[in-house]
């Protein structure tokens, strides 16, 4: 390996290691696998670094390698937990329920981090990965479309349903924990 190759990898790819790990953690659902997946992704990327064009999008390139590695080698072993039905989701029902008692969404503050991650993990895979790339990593729709190999329109609709399904989950949890009172059914 040339010094130049190593230096450019360290400058362009390594700063994204945390992002790769976070996405790996949400894809695989456990820390040990996330570490293995991250290590494998970074080493594959390093070996293939000559195929990367300097100054283009290293983060998207790494996340694409991560996703392919996960799909080809890890997905089969993922523990199958309960998943939320995102097809049932209606638009903005949580806001409708809370607009009179808590329109500012203060109840969100009471929800612990672990519960947020648990709820994300319960989303079906394609919705979870879209939400993670958008809301955990802050990627633009076009980049998510490229990584997940779907049209931008699909990213939009998946993100919409994922956010709404997650919000409904978190709201139900907050009601259950007594952080917020459920609105009595009208009429």
């Amino acid at each position: 390996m040339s010094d130049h190759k190593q230096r450019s990898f360290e400058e362009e790819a390594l700063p994204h290691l945390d992002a790769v790990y976070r996405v790996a953690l949400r894809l695989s659902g456990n820390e040990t696998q996330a570490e293995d997946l991250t290590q494998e992704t970074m080493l594959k990327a390093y070996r293939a670094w000559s195929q990367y064009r300097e100054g283009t999008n290293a983060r998207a390139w790494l996340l694409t390698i991560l996703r392919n590695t996960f799909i080809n080698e890890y997905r089969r072993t993922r523990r199958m937990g309960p998943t939320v039905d995102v097809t049932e989701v209606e638009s903005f029902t949580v806001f409708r329920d809370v607009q009179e008692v808590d329109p500012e969404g203060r109840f969100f503050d009471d929800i612990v981090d672990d519960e947020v991650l648990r709820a994300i993990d319960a989303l079906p895979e394609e919705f979870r990965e879209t939400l993670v790339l958008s809301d955990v990593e802050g990627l633009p729709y076009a980049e998510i479309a490229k990584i997940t190999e779907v049209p931008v329109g699909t990213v939009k609709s998946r993100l919409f349903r994922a956010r709404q399904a997650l919000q409904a989950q978190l709201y139900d949890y907050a009601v259950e924990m007594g952080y917020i009172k459920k609105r009595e059914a009208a009429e």
Partner: protein
Amino acid sequence: MTDRPRAIDCAEVMERLYEYLDGELTTERSDEVKAHLQDCAPCTALSSFETTYIRFLEARTRTRNAPEELKKRILEEMLFPQDDS
């Protein structure tokens, strides 16, 4: 010709709300949503609720970084690759 954005209704705002908040709309489309929000209290309330929610998600999930041990392991493997064939 007028520079005023085209008037859109609440349903259209709801449909585009996430794209608007994510900065994914063209300037023209974004201005239409913005103009509607200025005149519509219910949509403004919804918009600020969803903004709170998205910021909450970001704040609660972006904090985890890769363990230092893992970083070290990857660097070592880069410098001194082991034959894993």
